[in-house]
């Protein structure tokens, strides 16, 4: 009985890790611009690899009777560093003038040539509930 329960838990964690890794790959291929791809890649693959590390830890604990604390350290390390890496990537991309997708409706960091905040950065569109059908019906660029 305990074999079935433990094997099911280990299989759940391993299959969950593989599933979220696959979701990250689908997001990387399908999403339109760099920022949304970063959103998919950082969140989903982090959760996937954390589940996979937990499954590996339980597997070696149960099957081989070997407790490996480095896997716990790997989980904590991924949990700390993945948001930092994603934030640095997004910051680097924004300073390198990577264009957001054309249907992006809020860009709070946008500046004009003098360095002042751009007054027309789309916040009003959200508050008044206006939509932009001229932009939404445009063909998405590859």
């Amino acid at each position, binding site marked *: 009985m305990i074999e079935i329960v433990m094997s099911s838990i280990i299989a759940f964690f391993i299959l969950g*890790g593989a599933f979220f890794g696959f979701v990250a790959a689908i997001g990387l291929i399908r999403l339109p611009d760099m920022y949304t791809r970063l959103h998919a*890649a*950082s969140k989903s693959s982090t959760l996937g690899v954390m589940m*996979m590390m937990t499954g590996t830890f339980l597997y070696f604990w149960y099957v*081989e009777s070997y407790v490996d604390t480095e896997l716990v350290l790997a989980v904590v*390390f991924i949990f700390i560093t993945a948001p930092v890496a994603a934030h640095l990537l997004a910051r680097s991309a924004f300073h390198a003038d990577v264009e957001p997708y054309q249907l992006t409706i809020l860009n709070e960091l946008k500046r004009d040539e003098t360095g002042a905040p751009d007054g027309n950065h789309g916040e009003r569109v959200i508050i008044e509930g206006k939509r932009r059908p001229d932009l939404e019906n445009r063909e998405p660029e590859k």
Partner: protein
Amino acid sequence: MNTFLDVVIIFSVIVLAFAMLGMVYRMLKGPTLHDKLVALDAFGVLLMAMIALTAMMLGTTHLLVVVLLIGILAFIATIAFAKFLEKGVIIQYDRNSDE
């Protein structure tokens, strides 16, 4: 019951291999350099999971050190590459300069 876990592990290896193939596609095609860098970062993270699966398949515990090592190296590589693409240098001596 070990057969069940073996099937699960081999299935996960196949799924992760296809996921890594998709990231290689984005790494080769990505319109900007930053797209390629995002794909490289996610590829490094998935490589950790792949090596953990390999350790379970082979039944050895020696590969578990490699998991942590690859995680650290992928993080440092991402940081250095992002800073290089932003500023053109990696190590800055004057922290207030725009160069």
